[in-house]
């Protein structure tokens, strides 16, 4: 459905020396520099799939989304939805997509929310009967009724986000782009929004591309993730694949009365771990040890630890996706 191949985007940037003299110099003779925001990105998304599109800040996520939504023109490469290209026929292309930028709003700021939907109905040429049905459906999923008559400027962030998602779905798009739809929201609202996204995806087979920094969004919603960094693909696959590829991290939790555990245990010296392969956190009597199980098997780690200190309670855990991604982002792969 969505097809992206060797997508690349360069920006021209003026380089300035600091201070007012630097600004004056740059004004008279600007120094141009080319910055590559997106170097080479390729991926496909099937119909009805929810794709988690992740990467650290500045990785180029928003730039890719903006190319896919027809906002930016790619420097080179291909991006199409159902074979349609945004730069060829933008107007027909955007009819089939819905976009939510969590940090911006497309609602009419000064007017009651209902007015926004009235105008969007005309912009997308939704016939009256379809519009009423659609509003009833969106109201049921996103619970808009309690604030639909309030001016947009008075809505809370959670209400505004629900309203924005509804606005992007009014014309029944085939693809929905969500750029940080849960940013700044409390757990309950996040939960409601996730449920709504999931419901719409199931009901209407809407393809969803989701960027977020909240990995629970990804874990709960998407089966597949595409991770990018510094403008290039880093990983493309399912969450279990990500875990088996990078998830050799295990966590050892235990309670002990031994003081100064880390120097007593001295894992690095004993097993020859590198700096990134092991870490110890202590909080009162409870200790959390993270280690790379591809270097030292869990059983060796357990027997060594049990032999060294006095332990009351112990458990071993799989690293969660958050931990894997934290390591990937830090190392830059």
């Amino acid at each position, binding site marked *: 459905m969505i097809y992206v191949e060797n997508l690349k985007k360069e*920006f021209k940037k003026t380089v300035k020396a600091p201070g007012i003299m630097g600004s004056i110099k740059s004004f008279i003779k600007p120094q141009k520099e080319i910055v590559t925001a997106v170097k080479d990105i390729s991926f496909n998304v099937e119909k009805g799939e929810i794709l988690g599109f992740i990467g650290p800040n500045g990785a180029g996520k*928003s730039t890719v989304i*903006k190319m896919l*939504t*027809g*906002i*930016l*023109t790619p420097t080179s490469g291909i991006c199409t939805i159902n074979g349609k290209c945004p*730069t060829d026929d*933008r*107007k*027909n292309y*955007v*009819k089939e*997509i819905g*976009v939510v*930028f969590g*940090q*911006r709003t*497309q609602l*009419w700021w*000064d*007017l009651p929310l209902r*007015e926004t939907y009235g*105008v969007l109905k*005309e*912009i*997308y*040429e939704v016939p009256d009967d379809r519009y009423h049905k659609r509003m009833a459906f969106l109201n049921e999923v996103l619970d808009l009724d309690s604030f639909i008559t309030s*001016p947009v400027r008075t809505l809370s962030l959670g209400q505004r986000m629900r309203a924005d998602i509804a606005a992007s779905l009014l014309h029944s798009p085939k693809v929905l782009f969500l*750029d940080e739809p849960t940013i700044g929201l409390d757990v309950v609202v996040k939960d409601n929004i996730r449920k709504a996204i999931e419901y719409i995806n199931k009901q209407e087979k809407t393809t969803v591309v989701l960027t977020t920094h909240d990995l629970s969004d990804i874990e709960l919603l998407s089966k597949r993730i595409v991770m990018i960094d510094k403008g290039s693909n880093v990983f493309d696959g399912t969450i279990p694949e990500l875990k088996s590829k990078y998830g050799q991290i295990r966590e050892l939790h235990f309670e002990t009365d031994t003081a100064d555990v880390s120097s007593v245990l001295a894992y690095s010296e004993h097993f020859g771990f590198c700096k990134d392969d092991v870490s110890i956190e202590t909080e009162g009597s409870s200790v959390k040890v993270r280690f790379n199980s591809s270097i030292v098997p869990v059983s060796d780690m357990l027997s060594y630890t049990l032999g060294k200190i006095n332990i009351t309670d112990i458990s071993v855990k799989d690293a969660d996706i958050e931990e894997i991604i934290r390591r990937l982002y830090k190392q830059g792969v």
Partner: protein
Amino acid sequence: MKQIKRLLRMHRIFVVQELKRMMEYKGDFIVGIIGFLLGQFFNMLFIWIIFSQIPNLAGWTLEQVVFIYGFSLIPKGLDHLLFDNLWAVGHWLVRKGDFDRYLTRPINTLFHVMVEKLQIDALGELIMGIALICITLPSVAIEWSFVKILLIIIAIPFATLIYTGIKTATAAIAFWTKRSGNITYMFYMVNDFAKYPVTIYNNTVRNIITYIIPFAFTAYYPALYILTGENPFFNIGMTVIISIIVMTIGVIVWNKGIKAYESAGS
């Protein structure tokens, strides 16, 4: 035809939306109207003081000069009323990345930006223009004919589009430079020359406002035809041709600009 019908319908919807928006803040709306009426009063007073000092200008009578001045306010006011939002492109829409919104909607971006706001202040210019024309009409002795009225009706929208085209082209520069409000302002201010008969200027100014920044076709040339009935092929014909050229340049620069648009980080 279907396309035009849809554009007109969209235009009406945006205008209604804009009126609702203005009335959302009653206090601001009422004070705005009072301020506007006061402003118009002082404006009238000012023009009366100036023109009462110059009874005759390079062979033009006071009434003729005032008539041209009044006529110049009509296309300017129409553009100001309907398409004022183009200023926002050069000031902040591009710089802050708010232009994204227009690109994700299935409407022509230029049209969408142009009609999104209604500048009610412009009614002042229109009212004043009509008032000045009405006051001077009895004393400028115009010979009316069917063809003349028809040509005037044709000339006004084209004269308006000269303003719109210049604003479009200069606003679109912001797609490359991020800000172009001052460029638009610089061009726009040249229109002050066009409110008076161009024969009072030297050749340089006359050529600039006729051929380079062609504001003379928004007022002097069409008004000259109305006053004298002379040379409709140049006075009206060139207004139409220049208007089409300027608007075409505006649209070309705009469309190229959209390809260069860089949005803003989010």
